[in-house]
């Protein structure tokens, strides 16, 4: 066959062959990823050396850890006895002894069952929001939560009668999940009031009164929205509810409370601390900042100059001020502006300001999502005759929020970590507040790494779960199969 012969016909097809060994499996991977060039090889070796140094330095410390001791001195003694003089070892015994403070702060010990139950109810109430629900997942989820809750209640020495009552409550919840999962949404609706009651205690009637205000908003809205439109209808509802909250509620709930004194023992806000505090602030602010952020983002894109100016001004002002400044405002300044005798709870003030702070960031993230939507989506919604709020709710927001999920979850993670800043206004957050108290104890003087590692680990677990959840959600909502 000559070289310049242009025509060629293959008479036999070639079978596929194994690639050469250098192109296969682990060897290929190592060559491509670790030693692809001289610089890469040096970096790989340096990296290995660094990892070796860190592990060889800290691993004995972890392995020598002591779990049972009553003071730092005892810890050191045990380590020295077991591993020789000069050996170092972690003193996890501190956590063993003080874990309740890290979890609950100064919450009365005999009432630990209340925050624990509230936490379990929170998980149940989040389910309809976070996952697609069906009978099976709901039953499994509520079942697992119930079992864990019972174990936790047993762990915190819950009195028998309470144990039985909570057991009954969760038996009902599991049964509902099994029979009619869609009614679980009532746990979600009632949770703000029930959670408040469990955590702070007091008369049943004040959270009932507060919820009644929201019912008033709902009723007013559904009666007037056809005539007045969504924003005005909601506005009128809020005004009526505010009148109820400010002027009427106490006159109704007061007599009710004296006539029928139902309720729990009161717990003060300054008894809250540790992760209980972080979760109360974090979860409340997260759930409140998303709707506020959505409204701010819509306001910023509004055609109405006043609403737009207010939203822009608010967002830019909040983003221009450090969170710490706002927390100091919460603890000091707000008190001056309010009528003198109003007792405005410090935790509540902090929650409001953290919410406002993160709402401003979330608004900007959502605005990015809104800007990414093609104009055609708005036009199609308009052309079909959907009104502004229907179009937002059914067409625009589902898509814009989906685009914004990574940014929103980042804001949430940041918010949760920022809850540790409340230490600066005197609240006992887990990282600084509680650790300072532990260190001040003569028994645990000189402890350094252990509390930070412990608290850091818990924060990591929570934040990492949020980030994984965001990836799960992104995958689940992936609809453009292109």
């Amino acid at each position, binding site marked *: 066959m000559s070289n310049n012969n242009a025509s060629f016909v293959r008479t036999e097809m070639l079978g596929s062959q194994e690639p050469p060994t250098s192109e296969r499996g682990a060897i290929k991977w190592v060559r491509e990823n670790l030693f692809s060039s001289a610089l890469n090889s040096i970096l790989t070796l340096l990296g290995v050396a660094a990892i070796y140094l860190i592990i060889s330095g800290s691993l004995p410390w972890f392995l020598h850890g002591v779990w049972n001791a009553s003071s730092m001195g005892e810890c050191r003694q045990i380590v020295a006895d077991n591993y020789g003089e000069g050996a170092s070892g972690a003193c996890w015994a501190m956590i063993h002894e003080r874990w309740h403070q890290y979890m609950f702060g100064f919450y009365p010990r005999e009432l630990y069952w209340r925050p624990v139950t509230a936490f379990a109810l929170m998980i149940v109430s989040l389910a309809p929001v976070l996952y697609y629900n069906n009978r099976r997942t709901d039953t499994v989820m509520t079942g697992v939560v119930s079992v864990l809750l019972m174990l936790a209640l047993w762990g915190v020495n819950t009195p028998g009668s309470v144990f039985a009552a909570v057991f009954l409550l969760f038996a009902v919840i599991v049964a509902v999940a099994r029979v009619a999962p869609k009614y679980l949404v009532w746990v979600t609706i009632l949770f703000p009031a029930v959670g408040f009651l469990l955590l702070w205690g007091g008369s049943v009637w004040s959270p009932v009164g507060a919820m009644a205000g929201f019912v008033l908003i709902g009723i007013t809205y559904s009666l007037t929205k056809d005539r007045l439109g969504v924003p005005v209808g909601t506005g009128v509802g809020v005004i009526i509810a505010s009148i109820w909250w400010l002027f009427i509620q106490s006159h109704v709930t007061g007599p009710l409370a004296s006539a029928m004194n139902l309720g729990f023992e009161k717990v003060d806000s300054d008894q809250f601390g540790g992760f209980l505090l972080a979760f109360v602030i974090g979860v409340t602010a997260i759930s409140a900042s998303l709707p506020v952020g959505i409204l701010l983002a819509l306001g910023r894109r509004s055609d109405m100059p006043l609403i737009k100016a207010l939203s822009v001004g608010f967002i830019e002002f909040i983003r221009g001020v450090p969170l710490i400044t706002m927390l100091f405002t919460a603890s000091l300044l707000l008190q001056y502006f309010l009528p003198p005798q109003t007792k405005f709870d410090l935790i509540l003030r902090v929650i409001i300001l953290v919410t406002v702070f993160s709402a401003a960031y979330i608004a900007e993230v959502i605005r990015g999502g809104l800007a990414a939507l*093609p104009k055609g*989506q708005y036009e199609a919604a308009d052309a079909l005759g*959907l009104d502004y709020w229907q179009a937002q709710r*059914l067409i625009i927001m589902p898509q814009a929020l989906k685009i914004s999920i990574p940014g929103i979850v980042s804001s949430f993670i940041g918010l949760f970590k920022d809850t540790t800043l409340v230490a600066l206004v005197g609240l006992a957050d887990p990282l600084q507040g509680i650790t300072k108290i532990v260190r001040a104890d003569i028994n645990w003087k000189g402890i350094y790494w252990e509390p930070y590692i412990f608290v850091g680990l818990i924060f990591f677990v929570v934040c990492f779960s949020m980030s994984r959840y965001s990836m799960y959600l992104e995958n689940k909502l992936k609809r453009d*199969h292109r």
Partner: protein
Amino acid sequence: MSDPHAVTREINRSQMQVSDEVAIQITSMNKWYGAFHVLRDINMTVNRGERIVICGPSGSGKSTLIRCINRLEEHQSGQIIVDGTELTNDLKNIDKVRSEVGMVFQHFNLFPHLTILENCTLAPIWVRKTPRKEAEEVAMHFLEKVKIPEQALKYPGQLSGGQQQRVAIARSLCMKPRIMLFDEPTSALDPEMIKEVLDTMIELAEEGMTMLCVTHEMGFAQAVANRVIFMDQGQIVEQNEPKAFFNNPQSDRTKLFLSQILGH
């Protein structure tokens, strides 16, 4: 004629009747984008049952004109009356007109996060307050009509362009509109898909739907339209029955445009 999509099939004209009833009345309408005068003194009457094709060079204001008819764009002077309702700032009137007028866009504008069926039932359920079950039956009826009932549970991203455009047509039809507007419904499609969309539109015309259609498909115009409107620089330059319009154009602009588009 060198039109690749020349309509070859027999068109059933038994129901294609133009009545005396006025569907759309536009009188001395003007529109500006800022200082730019896009639509100039538009006067136009569309009777019920008419099939009107609007053509003209790019930028001549065709899209703007039909978008004014359901108020996706606002006009600054003159009058637009659709089905007896004048388009003003009154939101009630706008909502009324929009629920009577269906619109199909060049880029389909389906809602990507909803299934085909949900795309079709959304507006009936939320705007017309139709019970879900009934809305779904109606939607399936129209999806069968555009010949894709088997795709009902898929998402728009899983369909071809031609299928998506037919879904968009079905979505509009689910609102039982009395007038349909089309803005270049086939110009984002590959040649083999254009025919399936045109066939759907022809069927719609055969059922007597009032249609305004911006398109460069001259085969469709000749076979289906009862009137062709030629626009240039924001004005209606010439309008006539298709036969006369194509064989005997009057204005020089029209002649130039036709010679370009028909490739003579």
